[in-house]
């Protein structure tokens, strides 16, 4: 040992993940998108209960006096009477609410002829939408990783069958498969849920979206394994007698994690948008449950009831609020994925 080596301060080498994290946090867009998505998460999961506690009503309660006599909903920041029964005169015409009726605040007004709180529904809708996105991504990863590993590592006939199948399905517009499957599975699968935490219909939509979008990660995993299966570290594992499954599990899966992370962030966003598409067509979560998709579907109408639901008693704002929510979360997730990629592969700017 030379003097220089002995006298040098001992610095522990920084782990690879620390370097990656440092690169990630040093980018402004990355931090901004992370903060934006954290805000969306907080607003969707905690926002609904917090706002309910402050204003004193939840997103399911209907206030008949939150609409006027034409059933047009109350506007932004309006205090509506909490009277739950509409008073009628002897001719059946609607009477104004009693003067001393207690009033409650609707931050973004009412959601339509039913007179529910639009703000709380947008917040609650975020919860269901994000759950759909996250569950769907987990399900497609569960399907894609084993199949992709088999196809990519072993190649041959298994690979031929799997890649041919994915090519066929990818050539065709996915939405048709999704609608077809959803329509026919709705009676059996839609009631599944867990109270208000996981609204009924969310597991079904997540399952179907997850299954039908698993072709994309499957191809990703397969391609990545193709490039790695003849690498030296795999050969050396094989030489010491490791079985194929062990090589996949111990040597190759850790290398897949970054790829899956980059894909996952975008896929959550994509799956949320697929849910919007399904709801707008009218086959997703049932329309009484708030998701960003059903909130938009209210204003566009579905195939089952053409034209805006509730006879057009909606304003442009009822399209704009869910749109802003969707845009913020999807843009931040996309940027997040892009920043992940840059942090993981700094050489590929």
């Amino acid at each position: 040992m030379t003097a220089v080596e002995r006298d040098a301060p001992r610095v522990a080498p920084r782990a690879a993940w620390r370097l990656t994290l440092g690169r990630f946090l040093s980018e402004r867009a990355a931090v901004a998108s992370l903060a934006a998505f954290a805000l969306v998460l907080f607003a969707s999961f905690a926002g609904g209960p917090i706002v309910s506690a402050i204003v004193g009503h939840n997103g399911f309660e209907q206030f008949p006096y939150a609409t006027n006599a034409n059933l047009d909903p109350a506007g932004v920041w309006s205090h509506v009477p909490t009277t739950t029964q509409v008073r009628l005169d002897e001719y059946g015409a609607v009477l104004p609410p009693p003067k001393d009726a207690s009033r409650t605040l609707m931050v973004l007004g009412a959601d339509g002829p039913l007179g529910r709180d639009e703000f709380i529904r947008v917040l609650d809708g975020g919860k269901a939408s994000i759950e759909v996105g996250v569950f769907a991504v987990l399900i497609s990863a569960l399907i894609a990783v084993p199949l992709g590993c088999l196809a990519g590592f072993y190649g041959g006939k298994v690979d031929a069958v799997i890649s041919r199948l994915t090519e066929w399905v990818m050539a065709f517009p996915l939405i048709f498969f999704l609608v077809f499957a959803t329509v026919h599975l709705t009676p059996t699968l839609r009631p599944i849920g867990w109270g208000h935490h996981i609204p009924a219909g969310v597991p079904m939509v997540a399952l179907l979206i997850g299954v039908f979008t698993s072709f994309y990660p499957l191809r990703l995993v397969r391609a990545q394994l193709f490039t790695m299966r003849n690498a030296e570290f795999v050969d050396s594992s094989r030489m010491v007698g490791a079985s194929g499954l062990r090589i996949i599990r111990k040597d190759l899966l850790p290398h897949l994690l970054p790829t899956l992370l980059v894909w996952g962030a975008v896929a959550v966003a994509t799956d949320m948008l697929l849910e919007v598409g399904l709801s707008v067509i009218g086959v997703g979560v049932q329309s009484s449950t708030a998701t960003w998709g059903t909130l938009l579907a209210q204003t566009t109408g579905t195939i089952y009831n053409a034209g805006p639901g509730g006879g057009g008693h909606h304003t442009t704002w009822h399209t704009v609020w869910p749109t802003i929510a969707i845009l913020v979360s999807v843009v931040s997730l996309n940027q997040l994925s892009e920043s992940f990629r840059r942090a993981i592969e700094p050489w590929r700017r």
Partner: protein
Amino acid sequence: MKRIALFLARRIAGGALTLWAIVTLTWLMYWSISPQPGRFVYPVGIKITDFQLSDGAHRLGADRPKLTQYGDWWWHLLHGNFGHQWSSASLSHNVLTTFPIAPTLYPSLRETLCILIGGALLAVLISVPLGAISGRRVGSVADRLISLGALIGVCTHPIVTGKLLTQWFGIDLKWLPAGGYCTFVKHPTPAGYPPGYELCGGPVAWTTHLIMPWFTFAFLFLALYTRMIRASVAESIHEDYVRTARAKGARERRVMARHVLPNASLRVLTMVGMDIGTALGVAVFVEFVYGFSGLARLAINAMTGDPIASATDLPMLLAVVTVIALIVVIGNLIVDTLYAVVDPRTGAADRPGRTKEIAAGVM
């Protein structure tokens, strides 16, 4: 030449295989969901007797052996005949009346193709200059603005774009019709309409009705293609051949048009080929927002079924699926041919980079 012919022959065979696979998959999916075709004959809601179910299926010919029906369907298709639809079947005086599919299918196909072709042209026309501007100076103000716009475009669901466009330009400002389709040729008023009633039609009405659908359709692809052209331009602008062209004294515009952009066109072609399926998925929502009764709408209606009968109209579904698969296959064939023309190196080789970008939740 021979190599290109061989390459195309292989592609045609592959396309035929895809068509067969898609139709067979649809067929298998339909028969695996315990369908009730008999409901189309006796549309009496939920209370339908077992006899009515079996009799209805018998009258529609849906109780024959499955393989017979399958072969029969292909036999009819090879004769250019899609058969009869099940929905709108009506039984009176013990005679079943059904309507042929083709008269419903072809007008719908026309509407969808109008949206697809017009929207695709618009997307390419706008995205090439935007991508070139953005890719030439990475990091400039123009590049940042365009990239941000592209990010938002990639994240916006077509239903949102369409909804906001109709609301603003159709309903609030009343600049353009808020929905509906007009034929390019004005047809005379058919008999039975009140006097003075005119059918909507003619080139001007056709264009005004299609402007918003085109933009809605193009917005998503615009964003995708701008991103891609930007990446390609930014990559090739530092290549040696570009520097050589500049050194020879070529003008900037000529350098872009002759040396940089042709390189990007290869990637664009690859993407167009893969996005034809996606485009039909986008068309679902465009047709939906603007109230068109196009192909995608027809497919969704056939799948979700008659609201009364709540069953899937298999012949109609198969017909639409076949036409959609044909559009995908033929479109890919055209793209492949163009590819072989643009890039003389290709022949037997596969197109590079066959990974599909996903955008706005439409795949």
